[in-house]
């Protein structure tokens, strides 16, 4: 059956309204401060990584990328983000739809000439735009501080890699935002939605890396070490943070040739392909090819979760 009109009618209006809600909210204040503190804590001495990086100026052709990966005190920026981004996304997304139910505004909005599609997509895009704004600010802050503190400008390939890092981080945020959106559609109480999303996030980040090897060895019992490792990695990749960490490890370090390199290194093995020089940087495109599957996985996960929440939302009754 054909519906009249475009599903995107009113989409722009919804995005603008949601965006202005986000930007003027207390959550955004907190987010802004998190961005500034994260940038300063990771880079600026005495806590930051700058001092360490400066010692290597002469040695490394991709010095700038070290801003993202080198730990000064406790954690490198990339690790901080893999932890912080889900939290921010969940914080923005957990009450997107159920708050409309609870404020009893949903039926009033939907009795205007728009489809539910526009409302849901508008809320998702506005949330993603809000996170993107803070991530871009953080990214620019890091690069700016880097230029000032290191005193050298970044090269073209470094900028391209840093840019891909930014884009992948936004996709990673998209997965968690879509998950939070799904639970905000399913659960009427924002507190329940927030708790369950956060619970799932904790499970995926902390428990799953411990559990997945056990699952893998139970489901694929094998004497072949390599097969077992492959199975373990496949299971670990069900967590978005595993995908994200693999992508940034490869994109931000041109000397990494495989997502399994660090795993083998931990076992004292070195992955050497015939005809290659160990530790030599590979071109950007090759790095991208190595992790293309993971990037697609993150985007596909976002779309899948969004579509699920779309289907649930369409079938929901409007009345409270």
């Amino acid at each position, binding site marked *: *059956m*054909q*519906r*009249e*009109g475009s599903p995107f*009618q*009113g989409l722009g*209006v*919804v995005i*603008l*309204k949601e965006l202005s*809600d986000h930007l003027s909210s207390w959550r955004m204040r907190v987010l802004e401060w998190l961005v500034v503190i994260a940038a300063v804590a990771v880079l600026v001495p005495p806590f930051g990584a700058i001092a360490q990086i400066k010692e290597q100026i002469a040695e490394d052709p991709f010095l700038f990328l070290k801003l993202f990966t080198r730990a000064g005190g406790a954690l490198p920026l990339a690790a901080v983000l893999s932890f912080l981004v889900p939290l921010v996304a969940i914080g923005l997304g957990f009450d997107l739809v159920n708050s409309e139910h609870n*404020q*009893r*505004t949903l*039926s*009033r*909005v*939907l*009795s*205007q*000439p*728009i*489809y539910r599609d526009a409302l849901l997509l508008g809320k998702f895009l506005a949330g993603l735009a809000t996170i993107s704004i803070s991530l871009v600010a953080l990214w620019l802050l890091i690069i700016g501080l880097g230029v000032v503190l290191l005193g050298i400008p970044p090269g073209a390939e470094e900028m391209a890699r840093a840019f891909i890092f930014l884009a992948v981080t936004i996709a990673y945020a998209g997965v968690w935002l879509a998950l939070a959106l799904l639970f905000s559609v399913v659960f009427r109480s924002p507190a329940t939605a927030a708790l369950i999303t956060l619970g799932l996030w904790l499970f995926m980040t902390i428990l799953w890396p411990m559990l997945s090897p056990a699952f893998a060895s139970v489901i694929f019992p094998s004497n072949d070490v390599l097969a077992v490792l492959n199975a373990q990695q496949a299971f670990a990749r069900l967590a978005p943070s595993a995908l994200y960490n693999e992508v940034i490890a490869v994109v931000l370090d041109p000397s990494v040739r495989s997502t399994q390199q660090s795993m083998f290194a931990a076992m004292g093995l070195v992955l050497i392909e015939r005809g290659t020089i160990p530790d030599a940087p590979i071109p950007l495109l090759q790095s991208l090819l190595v992790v293309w599957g993971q990037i697609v996985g993150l985007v596909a996960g976002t779309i899948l979760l969004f579509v699920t929440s779309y289907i649930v939302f369409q079938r929901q*009754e*409007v*009345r*409270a």
Partner: protein
Amino acid sequence: MSDTLIEAKNLVKRYDGVAVVKGVSFSVARGEIFGLLGPNGAGKTTTILMLLGLSDITEGQARVVGYDPVRQPLSVKRRVGYLPDQVGFYDNLTAADNMRYMARLIGLTPQQREERIKSSLEHVGLTGVADKRVTTFSRGMRQRLGLAEILMKEAQIAILDEPTSGLDPQATLELLEIIRNLKHHGVSVLLSSHLLERVQSVCDRVALFNEGKIVLIGTVAELGRQVLGGGTYVDIEAEGQGLADKLATVPGVRAVETTAPNCFRLLAEADVRPEAAAAVVAAGGRLLRLSVEEPSLEMIYTRYFQNVSNEGARHAA
């Protein structure tokens, strides 16, 4: 364009196989105020949501301003204003900003937007608080703001779900006045309520819902005839001996009920006040009060559901 703005034919709504609305048919003409009455859970709100295209129609057909709410929900929603039960607003926004958001969703130009917001807020008497946050609004103000939105939309049909529930008498009167004004502007009003007295005072026609069906439909007078059997009730208060027997002999009186000492209620075929007064005086009684009771919706409603439950009890026995 036809003068029937809403036409519902055999609307059925089932949730998981359980029918909530079981074949509802009615029509509303241009400029008519039509009331949907019935106990909670009788299917009034579900019917409204189906007409708006906010809920799928399981069976049957509906035409709203000539459009099918299932296939052309945008055309329907562009022409119909809806005030939900316990309407909600974005509490962190001002009244005017809440309306601006809706105006943008409707697609008004910036100039139309500001003009219509101003005039409709004025119409409902909220001009002074246009720039106040909605958090501070009372229930009556929220309902009026909801009506202002319908005015801003310049809707041809206003669908109001329990507009007066939870309002104090003064706020209710003001709201009903605004609803009457809508009618004068040629807007059809579909109104659901269980506050019978209020509904009676504004509605041209009503439909009485029970368990997902329309059991009675028509003007209040017509319903009175159907349910009360066309009888007229005459209340008499008089002092005297054996008045009840005397009153029973008055021509046209079918029954006499002694409701309290010295108070009698006659069920008669017509207004028998003069004859009854004469009978009281002839019997040497002192007539204190004499009144005829018009059939009120409340009476019709109570009587109807009494009959239904009596029959139910009989069937059960």
